[in-house]
Structures are given as structure tokens and as C-alpha cells.
């Protein structure tokens, strides 16, 4: 199984993702420059965090027009696994691969902190090594993580069980106080209808070693590897 990490100008969590795949998943991984268009050799593609194109215009808006994105749309349509983290989530929303949008945090600040998220769907290729209701402690680092969507989209996400991670307190309760950025319905991560595209604001790739304060993120990458061990 082979992983790819897309690198845009301004991506800055690409090496973290690469490190986690090679060290903790123990699988081959390539950097994919945003001008490359051949994704055919990859079993999973990660869009890492950072500030692609300096967040100019809107976070993730200009990355959408990079050459690799057309290939990524076809790749996702054909069932390829795509994981968007932080800026990667913003890019997936801007590109229309996931619904909704991420706007400025409710309290305006760039938030850099550890938060808790609850796993609300453990039946995705990204969470199948977790259990529903599990609470993960993960870092966030963003200024535009406030998830918004219209009522119809929210109903659809809820009905189809596509809300995968929600901000919660340390006991797994979904509360207003545990929502760091004002996201609708405490949404921290969602997947597409086919469940092969996941976007989330927290950084699981920065939470794979106890030295870094949490290793809860490893289960997300273990899930991906377990999925690919069956299919790839």
C-alpha cells in the first residue's frame, strides 16, 4: 500500500504526515507536488495542513485551482481514499468534495490548543479501528475552523451519519463550552456520501507520539492502514 501527501506552496504539515505514515504506519509514502497530476500509484492521498497560497482570498480557495486538484476529483470519484487535515479540510470544502465551508473562528483568534473530539461514526475507512463514542485528545491550530452549512446540508449529514468527529468535553459530552470555534453542531470532521473522503480540522498527525502530548491520532492512521490491508 502506498500513500501520497500533496504539497501546495504554503503547506506546512506535509512532513508531519509523511513522518507518521513512514514511521507509525510503516508504509511507503511520497510527496506529491501540486503541479503533478498522476495519482494512479497511490492507495490513499493526504492533503496536509498549512497555509496553501498564504490563505489568500479564502483559506483553501486558490489551492482548488492547482493542477493536482482535477486529478484528485477523479481519484475521489473512483473511490480513492482522501484525508484532508485542517487546511486540507478547507481545500476539500472549497473544491466541492465535501459540503459546507469553514469560516473565521467565532472568537476571531487563531486557536492553538488540545481539544477533545468524539467519534460519532466508526464505520468509515478512517475510523474503523475506533469505537463509536470514543473520545480523542487532538491538537487544533487554525483561525478558520468554524464549520458552516445550510439547514438542508446539516440534516443530510446527520441523516447519513456523515458527521465523523464532533468537539466534546473530556467525557464525550457535546457542549457549547467544548466547541472551540463556533462550528455548527460541534462539527470537527465530516465525510462524503461514499465515505472515501474525510476532512477534519484537528491534527491527528501531530498526535501520534506520547512525547507530543497525545498519541490518540494514531488510530485514525491505523484505521486507514487496516482498510487498505483488505482492499489494496
Amino acid at each position, binding site marked *: 500500500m502506498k500513500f501520497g501527501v500533496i504539497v501546495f506552496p504554503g503547506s506546512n504539515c506535509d512532513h508531519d504526515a509523511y513522518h507518521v505514515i513512514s514511521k507509525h504506519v510503516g508504509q511507503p509514502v511520497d510527496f506529491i507536488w501540486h503541479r503533478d497530476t498522476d495519482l494512479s500509484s497511490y492507495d490513499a492521498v493526504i492533503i496536509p495542513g498549512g497555509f496553501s497560497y498564504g490563505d489568500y*482570498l479564502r483559506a483553501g*480557495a486558490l489551492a482548488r*485551482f492547482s493542477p493536482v486538484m482535477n486529478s484528485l476529483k477523479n481519484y475521489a470519484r473512483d473511490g480513492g481514499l482522501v484525508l484532508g487535515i485542517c487546511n486540507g479540510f478547507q481545500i476539500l470544502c472549497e473544491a466541492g468534495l465535501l459540503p*459546507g*465551508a469553514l469560516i*473565521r473562528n*467565532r472568537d*476571531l483568534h487563531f486557536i492553538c490548543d488540545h481539544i477533545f473530539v468524539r467519534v460519532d461514526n466508526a464505520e468509515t475507512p478512517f475510523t474503523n479501528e475506533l469505537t463509536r463514542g470514543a473520545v480523542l485528545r487532538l491538537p487544533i491550530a487554525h483561525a478558520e475552523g468554524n464549520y*458552516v452549512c445550510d439547514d438542508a446540508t446539516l440534516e443530510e449529514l446527520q441523516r447519513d451519519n456523515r458527521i465523523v468527529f464532533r468537539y466534546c468535553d473530556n467525557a464525550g459530552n457535546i457542549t457549547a463550552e467544548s466547541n472551540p470555534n*463556533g462550528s455548527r453542531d460541534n462539527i470537527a470532521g465530516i465525510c462524503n456520501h461514499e465515505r472515501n473522503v474525510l476532512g477534519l480540522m484537528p491534527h491527528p498527525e501531530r498526535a501520534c507520539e506520547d512525547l507530543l502530548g497525545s498519541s490518540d491520532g494514531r488510530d485514525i492512521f491505523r484505521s486507514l492502514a487496516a482498510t487498505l490491508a483488505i482492499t489494496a
Partner: protein
Amino acid sequence: MKAKVYVNLKPGVLDPQGKAIHHSVELLGFAGISDVRQGKYFEIALDGTLGEEQARESVARLAREVLSNPIIEDYRVEIET
């Protein structure tokens, strides 16, 4: 010929920056101001090869597909001849 594009958050979409500005405006004692919404303004130079209507269509497409995110924002195009 020049195009002007105004992009604003849709009514109802939270605008924390506008709220912060409004708060400062209140602290400064400006009277009669009930709300502030922050948006974006683009000036687009046109080379004159398109007629006014064509230019309007082209810039509207640019505003729809690039300059705004239709999920959260509205846009308005003005053509200045």
C-alpha cells in the same frame, strides 16, 4: 473599462470581524451605527476587447467561481466604462 466586484457574507452567516469592528466603533462613541459587516472589494482592469454585456457576464462568472464562495457569500458586479 473597469469592473468592480463586491463580495459579502450572506445575511445570517456570522461575521466575527465585522462584530469586532462594530464593538470598537461603539467604544469610540460613534452614534447611530447599528451593525458592521466586513466584505471584500476587487478592482478588475478590462482591456476593452469585450463589450459591456460580455464583460459583465465574464466578470460575474469570475465572481461566482473564484472570488466568492457561494455557500457563504454573495457578490455584486459593477462595470465602469
